């Protein structure tokens, strides 16, 4: 376990060997018109294949951070670089997922999955990607559901289709905005394990924002705590549980200790 104070060197031990994929340096955001200081000097370095979890209360500036990271908002200050290229707008090497599956009810599963291709490269290209889409649906355990409309899917199944849609463009980094918090507890645990398996299989680099400390701990290599007004990344905890993680680990003393440590950090910082 290693805890750094404020994130001056936000790359904890164990990850330093791998190449940096996504880097934020001194990112601040002020909404001038409303005079809101949303983010203050955010530094982040995501290494290839790593999983970074962020814990923050509502209104800690995490939506602003995700919007900046996904190229929807420009920072007021600082630099955002993905794979060596500055992020100055939406990019296909960024995959994003929300709390809601956000599937379109007039499209079948497979049509929802290839939507990002259709938007960027047209209908022809989307049709050519149907095989890749089917393979992804199989990867998340939805073989045979290609032609099914979203209203016939359960919440967990719909989120799995959303995962496939995020993965179809083969993104370098996955931005996950509380992806499973609308699911019931049982589905959520299951989906966390699915997500871990998919990330391992694709060697994906992931950035997860969540309200759930156990979820962050079971999934992440590193968990940071975000505090509000202005949003900043506080303490960072390395999760030294072995991989692959299992749900059984949640009952181990080490897991409990990590959860307790992160909760302690939150109590100090987040609700002041």
């Amino acid at each position: 376990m290693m805890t750094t104070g404020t994130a001056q060197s936000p790359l904890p031990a164990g990850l330093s060997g791998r190449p940096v994929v996504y880097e934020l340096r001194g990112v601040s955001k002020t909404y001038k018109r409303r005079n809101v200081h949303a983010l203050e000097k955010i530094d982040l370095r995501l290494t290839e294949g790593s999983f970074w979890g962020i814990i923050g209360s509502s209104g800690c500036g995490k939506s602003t951070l995700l919007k900046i990271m996904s190229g929807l908002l420009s920072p007021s200050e600082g630099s955002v670089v993905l794979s060596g290229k500055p992020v100055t707008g939406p990019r296909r090497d960024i995959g994003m997922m929300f709390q809601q599956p956000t599937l379109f009810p007039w499209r079948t599963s497979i049509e929802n999955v290839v939507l990002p291709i259709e938007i960027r490269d047209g209908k022809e290209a989307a049709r050519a990607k149907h095989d890749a889409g089917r393979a992804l649906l199989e990867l998340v355990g939805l073989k045979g559901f290609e032609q099914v409309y979203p209203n016939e899917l359960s919440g967990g199944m719909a989120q799995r289709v959303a995962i496939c849609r995020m993965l179809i463009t083969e993104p370098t980094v996955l931005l996950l905005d509380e992806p499973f918090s609308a699911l019931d507890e049982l589905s959520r645990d299951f989906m966390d394990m699915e997500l871990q398996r998919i990330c391992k299989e694709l060697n994906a680099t992931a950035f997860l924002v969540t309200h759930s400390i156990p979820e962050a701990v079971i999934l992440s290599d590193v968990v940071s705590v975000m505090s509000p007004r202005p949003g900043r990344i506080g303490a960072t905890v390395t999760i030294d549980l072995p991989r692959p993680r299992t749900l059984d680990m949640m009952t181990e003393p080490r897991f409990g200790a990590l959860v307790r440590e992160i909760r302690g950090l939150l109590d100090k910082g987040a609700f002041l």
Partner: protein
Amino acid sequence: MTNELTAAAKPVAPQTVWTEEVHWLDRIPRSVAMLLLLCIFIAVWQAVYSLRLISHIIMPSPMETVVDIITVATNLLTGDYMLRALWITTQEVLAGFVIAVVLGFSLGLLVGETAFGERAVLPYLVGINAAPKVAFAPLFVSWLGFGIASKVALAAFVAIFPVIVGTAAGIHAADQNSRMLFRTMGATRWQALIKLKLPYGMPHFFGGLKNAAVLVVVGAVVGEFLGGGKGFGELIRMAASMINTPRVFALILFLSLLGLGTFWIVIQLQRKLIFWHKETVADEMFE
């Protein structure tokens, strides 16, 4: 162990099969219920007639009305002057509806999709909508004459507002996450409109169309009342001026069928286009 327990418990377990209570009125099938209500209505009507509560000159008996319905139906089926009048009104209704849909959709897009439309155009539309629209009828007659054009104009004018409102509301129906997702996918404004906002807006749009389908008949008939011509409205006006009340009832009945017809067309279109949307009570009526 557990097996033994359940086996032992079995003989003493009391039967708890019971019937949930449903009111006998709720058990009646729809067709029977509808017929029942109609019978009650006719019985009350007949009672009012027999007791002479209202003068027979202005209140015909149910039987007289049925006879006249048959007369009108015969006239329509043999292609006599009433069919020609109904055809004129039908043309007015259809032309007015098409104009209301095309213009209303365009204006709805302008108001819903562009900031300029919302800021500059919408206040005027709200203002005009608040005005009693049929009061414009004499104006349409003086501009377009006593022919079919002035009725089409009034029908379209009355029916256009629900279409505008439905379209504009529909464009705003897509949720924040969907919009954000489209932006992260690098969608152009056009793509977001075609692939996101318009499909999501379809239920609202069709809600507007259903209102318009009913209003357009109102507009056409009021146009005929106030601007003459040779349509069904003129037949009603003439029958009423001769105090031929059974004829008025019969004509109104067939006019309602015209409104029901346009409504039915909209419902059929809606089912084809937005199969993914939950059906409403009004849709079920046509199943």
